[in-house]
């Protein structure tokens, strides 16, 4: 069995875990992050993609609101290529309690969130999909954020300082001796091999799996698993994030991302942290509520539905849902349970991941006797792509293709542009919906942590557009079939990828997307007879 050593092992490759890894690395603490799947395969890729201003929490959760606005401003500064400065709106409809607005304005002001009343007529002119019945509207500093990109930014930054990442490694045991954690045991999810890491400290940042991880060390952490379903429209319906001005509820936020819009979410307590099946009825309910803000919603094309599990935490026994705080909690298991060398970071939300990491690493560093201060709020996540490099990119990918690739690739954009300059054939676009080139796909395949077509998708957005992988998954397989990790069972690679896409398409199979589904089954069954391939 392979044995590694690191001072700290971080469990969980979501926003919080990768944020912690970066913070540790920047303070010079040797660490390994372990993740059971690919990075961001869980909650951190299954949300609105909303960088909260905090306004949503201002009335009920003042502390969370204040943290949100502070972190919002920090992320804009350190990760400008991951944040789209859309701005946000809170709109009130005739059926909403007008008194809530006053309460909300006061709360926002107290939390330090700017909320300026907007001219409703002008807003509707700029965002014509909005209901003409909007009574009042306020502008807040909400943004759209790309979860995948932030996570990879964290990891790449941490790696530059010597940190390591093991994806597809599930923790199977947490070893302890004399009341102190000594290491973890892992199982490689792709080949079943075991591996162990000796360490002084384990940080449990496993999100919805936080309770399961704690249980391996014999501890009880009550993580409430709250499933939220979201839908993705194949249009940019509006240019700003749009929230409903009333107490937070289902289906009251729209977030534009590039060419699509995400509407969500629902809230249901579940038992399984891996329960990411979007429900058909939940989707219909979302659309119904969304229609109050966007009356023509039914006529727009949906591309898929997806669901994520919020890991909520409330000390003691809470049932779950909207009433549970969105605050995070840092549990020192030495103090709480008498087990040295383990902390859990639970609850919270994507917007505040950096702060959660900072607080966690502050505690861990003090336990390890490290004095280095946190630098993650000051140091940029990646070097911005220069104008000169972008110009070179435009020559090989065209203007929109170069912009998208530069945003996705950040620090790696230069390498990919260089590849295409050397070999123009590599500039061909394999995923037309998201304008992903062969060179970019090869770059992702070379990275050392792409084992499936899904991993390539999360790194490049290949397969996430209108066709949902119907054309580009086959092309990507073809282009990568010479790579050892894609040379084996083509049926399995393609089937797994297509099945994941299918899971999200099924709850929205009508209108245009049903046509797409018919084309997709036509290609893989009628033309390729793949249903009988073995």
């Amino acid at each position, binding site marked *: 069995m392979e044995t590694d050593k690191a001072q700290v092992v971080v469990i969980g490759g979501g926003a919080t875990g990768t944020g912690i890894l970066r913070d540790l690395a920047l303070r010079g603490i040797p660490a390994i992050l372990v993740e059971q799947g690919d990075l961001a395969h869980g909650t951190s890729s299954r949300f609105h993609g909303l960088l909260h201003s905090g306004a949503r929490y201002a009335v009920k959760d003042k502390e969370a609101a204040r943290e949100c606005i502070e972190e919002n401003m920090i992320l804009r500064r350190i990760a400008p290529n991951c944040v789209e400065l859309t701005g946000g709106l809170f709109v009130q409809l005739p059926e909403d309690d007008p008194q809530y607005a006053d309460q909300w304005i006061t709360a926002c002001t107290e939390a330090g969130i700017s909320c300026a009343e907007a001219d409703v007529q002008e807003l509707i002119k700029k965002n014509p999909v909005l209901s003409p019945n909007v009574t009042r509207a306020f502008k807040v500093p909400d943004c759209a954020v790309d979860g995948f990109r932030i996570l990879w930014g964290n990891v790449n930054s941490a790696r530059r300082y010597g940190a390591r990442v093991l994806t597809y490694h599930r923790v199977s045991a947490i070893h302890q001796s004399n009341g102190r954690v000594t290491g973890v045991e892992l199982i490689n999810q792709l080949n079943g091999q075991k591996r162990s890491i000796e360490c002084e400290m384990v940080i449990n940042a496993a999100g919805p799996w936080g309770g399961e991880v704690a249980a391996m060390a014999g501890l009880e952490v009550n993580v409430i698993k709250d499933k939220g379903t979201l839908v993705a429209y194949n249009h940019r319906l509006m240019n700003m994030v749009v929230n409903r001005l009333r107490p937070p509820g289902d289906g009251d936020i729209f977030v534009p991302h590039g060419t699509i819009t995400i509407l969500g979410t629902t809230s249901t307590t579940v038992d399984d942290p891996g329960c990411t099946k979007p429900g058909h009825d939940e989707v219909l309910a979302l659309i119904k509520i969304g229609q109050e803000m966007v009356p023509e919603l039914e006529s727009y094309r949906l591309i898929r539905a997806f669901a994520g599990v919020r890991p909520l935490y409330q000390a003691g026994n809470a049932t779950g849902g909207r009433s549970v705080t969105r605050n995070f909690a840092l549990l020192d298991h030495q103090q709480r349970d008498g087990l040295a060398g383990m902390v859990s970071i639970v609850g919270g939300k994507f917007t505040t991941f950096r702060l959660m990491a900072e607080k966690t690493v502050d505690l861990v560093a003090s336990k390890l006797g490290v004095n280095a201060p946190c630098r993650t709020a000051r140091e940029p996540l990646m070097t911005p792509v220069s104008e000169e490099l972008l110009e070179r990119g435009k020559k090989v990918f065209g203007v929109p293709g170069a912009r998208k690739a530069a945003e996705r690739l950040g620090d790696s954009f230069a390498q990919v542009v260089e590849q295409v300059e050397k070999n123009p054939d590599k500039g061909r676009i394999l995923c037309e919906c998201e304008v992903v080139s062969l060179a970019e796909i090869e770059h992702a395949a070379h990275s050392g942590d792409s084992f499936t077509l899904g991993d390539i998708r999360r790194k490049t957005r290949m397969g996430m557009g209108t066709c949902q992988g119907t054309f580009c998954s086959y092309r990507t397989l073809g282009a990568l079939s010479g790579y050892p990790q894609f040379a084996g069972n083509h049926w399995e690679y393609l*089937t797994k990828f297509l099945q994941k896409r299918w899971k999200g398409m*099924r709850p929205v*199979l009508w209108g245009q997307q049903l046509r797409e589904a018919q084309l997709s089954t*036509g290609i893989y069954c009628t*033309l*390729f*007879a793949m249903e009988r391939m073995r």
Partner: protein
Amino acid sequence: MNKYTDVLIIGAGLSGLMAAAKAAEQGKEVMLVAKGMGAVGLSSGCIDLWGYNLEDPNQVCQDPLAEIARLCAVNPQHPYARVRDVLEESLLFFRRVCQENGNPYLDHRGGNWLLPTALGTLRPTYLAPASMAVGDLQQVRGVLVVGFRELKDFYPDVLAANLKKSGVLQADCPLNTLMVCAGGGELTPNTLAYRLENPAVVDRIVDQIKPHLLPGAVLLLPPVLGERWDSQVAKNLAEKLGHPVYEVTNIPPALPGQRLQQMLLHHVKGQGVEVVIGCTVNGARVADKRCTEVLATGAGKPIKISAKTVILATGSFLGGGLESKPGKAWESIFGLPVETGHEKWSARDFLSMAGHLFNQMGIKVNEHLRPVDKTGEVIIENVMVTGANLAGCNHPIEKCGNGVAVASGYKAGKLAGEVGE
């Protein structure tokens, strides 16, 4: 603008074109209007009739006609049960039209061909254009898969790896791959097919392939060998190489389906059919269970068309013949009912062997292809329904889409003007 015709066909897919060809042959005045080029251009270009055994759906069916006879007994709701009386003559008619237009379709001694795809799988089909009709792969003494550098939709190594795994080749059969250059740049299947119509380009490809040929080898290429329906590219390439050359099925766009459509369009125009492409039918007037006129828009102008018989060949959801909302589906011109069942429209597994309900949705018809309601009562007497518009066919799994289109289109064309008028 007002138009009058004996037979109006809506849709330029395989069933619409078959209906036009047959009705015109019987001396009817025929008009064909279509929004676009029809889904046959997205198809393999082969006529899949029936792929597998009813009892063992993993076994390739050796006698599709006999299997369809059995099918009609066990599943009288299948579209084949409505067209079985004309199935064989429709196939003969189809082959005669193809022959006359220089794009012959070959059968495999009455059984199924087992033709390779770009994914290296094998698919059963009844009739194949000569350019696709690979004989028994078990017998070949070598395979060379040739791809084009300019084309991003075809990967010889994927085809070769999976064909080898399929076990159809003899164990010692050499299986090689080769990439050739057709002049550089990036080309779509259509632009590459156009380029290959130039004999000088074909010569340069021949030069690149020749050094890699082994005795007795057959060549498999992507479906781009020529743009025109009567293209000789595959034939010329084979003659110059001295080895048989075949196109395999691939993701759309692929030329064999487009050639089939072009050929049939050419044929029906030659038969005097008035063809208007780019004409969207938005609705129809129906009185006393008869369609009195359809309302269309062509080149921005409204057109009213009256016809004795209207043949609805507008396709399924993909073709735009059917539309849907959550929990509800309907036919798009006449609003004919489409049964959606109480079950889910799709199966949990994308590649489910049971198929998806949405692919079986469509319009119920009687033995004269007239749309009927739940009780079997005809809804509109002078309308006939063909092809993918028909309910009850699980074509992606059964491999019968183009077969149903040929037979139902032919039958509608034959019946036009005979029944109910």
